[in-house]
């Protein structure tokens, strides 16, 4: 089925486009908006929609989607968990945090739990080195993590509606 934004989101898209001297500049914000409206991933239908709205080729939009890490080309779980593993976090035990997440969720990094609730990922530097180890859950940072805190966060994600 063809993808389309809701009336409210389409209004937001109009606001975004108006910020720039040309439509192409809205590509990344438009993709974010559509990704959120599409269950957190960018399907071919989304690419077609954005290309049409911004008067671009689908090849251009696809090129942008495949360049950036945060555009999902497959549907992730309801919640996305990124564990930072770059040096400052690694010096503070991010390996243990990641291993704990993998064990508790029963999946490897990059996978989604069977119930479709959580996708576990690794992140390259979340710019929170002073409060390492750090993970990002959807749009929120959790810093100075302990294993107990990770347990609480993951329990909530697996339980909550």
């Amino acid at each position, binding site marked *: 089925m063809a993808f389309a934004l809701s009336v409210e989101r389409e209004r937001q898209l109009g606001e975004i486009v108006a910020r720039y001297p040309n439509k192409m500049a809205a590509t990344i914000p438009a993709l*974010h908006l559509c990704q959120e409206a599409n269950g957190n991933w960018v399907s071919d239908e989304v690419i077609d929609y954005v290309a049409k709205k911004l008067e671009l080729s689908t090849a251009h939009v696809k090129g*942008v989607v495949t360049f*950036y890490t*945060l555009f999902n080309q497959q549907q992730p779980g309801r919640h996305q968990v990124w564990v930072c593993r770059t040096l400052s976090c690694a*010096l*503070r035990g991010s390996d243990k945090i990641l291993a704990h997440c993998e064990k508790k969720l029963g999946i490897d990094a990059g996978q989604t739990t069977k119930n479709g609730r959580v996708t576990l990922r690794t992140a390259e530097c979340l*710019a929170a080195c002073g409060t390492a180890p750090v993970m990002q859950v959807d749009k929120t940072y959790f810093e100075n993590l302990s294993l107990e805190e990770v347990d609480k966060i993951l329990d909530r994600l697996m339980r909550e509606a």
Partner: protein
Amino acid sequence: MLKPTSYLTHSYGLTDGFTLANYEKHNGYSQVRKALAMSREAVTDEVKKAHVRGRGGAGFDCGVKWSFMPKESKKPHYLVINADEGEPGTFKDRSIMELNPHSVIEGCMIACWGIGAHACYIYVRDELHLAKKRLEDAIREAKGKGYLGRTPFGRPWELEMYVHTGAGAYICGEETALLNSLEGRRGEPRIKPPFPAQYGAFACPTTVNNVETVAILPTVLQLGGDAFSKLSSLHHFNDGGVRLFGVSGHVKNPGIYEACVGLTLRELIYDLGGGILGDRELLGVIPGGSSCPVHLPGEVVNVPSDPRFAPFNGKSILDLPLGVETFRTVGSMLGTCGAIVLSDAADPVIAIQNLMRFYRHESCGQCTPCREGCGWIERILNKIIEGKGSIAELDQIHEIANDIGGNTICAFGDGAAQPALAFVRRYRKHFEDYILNGGKLQTRRLTVS
């Protein structure tokens, strides 16, 4: 010399520190009013006198950069703020955006006046959702008061400010990649020249400044350029004022500290950072973000050719004031002043493997030496750690890194090659132990326990 200040960080501990009300209580938006009463050239001159070295890592003089913008031009001028913070070890800009966003907005307004721009885009990495919200709220508040829009402060000088988001690519912190990304393209760096001041965003004259660089501008005007510069003990190196220093890794109190320029690594690690975690020995320190070379505590400063180095010659690099010129002259780099501290519990071979994985993952893939070279170095390191490496391969790391450096469109290549070379040079016996003895003498971990 350790001289703590709080020009940017005074709002950090407050629950309402990010609001307009609090910002104005502390004289907020008084400096942009002052700037608007000055000529564009006078503002640029004041910033030049302040010797604000770009806080994004390259350390270019902010006022000089502004002076590259055309005086007269038919095309619109743009100010673009680089808030794509993502260099491992660097986490200062996020704190400013979240805890003192109005300083960024006021700084942007001063910069727009200085370069003759009527539009400013703040390019924030997507992950920093709170920072984006705080900036957007701050823009809305400022607009509500009539500070932005068609007639800021009642003057016929239209100014619009927008938050633009990235989508997860470290390379977009490179200014021309950032401009491509802003324009809605893949974030691949452009060949320079042309430089952004001639041909930047949307093919128009553009200045790209770091978040901290603009956030400190109200302070520059408040104190006056010269007085601001003289806060620094490196004023005579044309490196002025105050900046945010970060310290992470194996220290007791990691975090952001504001101080006058001229702080030393020893002060950052031991006085501000509280010393090494578990009171262990210092193995090494990366002075300012992961692209800088790692230094051993035993390294000695020796620059007999420059009389300004007389007070530092013969001393440890830990006692050399952190400045753009001081560190460049000794073959290092100041970067973003975000030090990563390694205690002797950390295995340097694993540390550089971690960083090379980062660079392999984040290389944009445009230039062959960087795209392939980062992966080759990472794979050689993996082999060495698995006990399957050879001395010839260890030597090959030097060769590959030297072939990346200077042979790519942007500085990412050098930023990846530099740490690799520094680690293999300074910790050669650790690598050899992996190759010859299976790493028996190494800790094989990064954490303290």
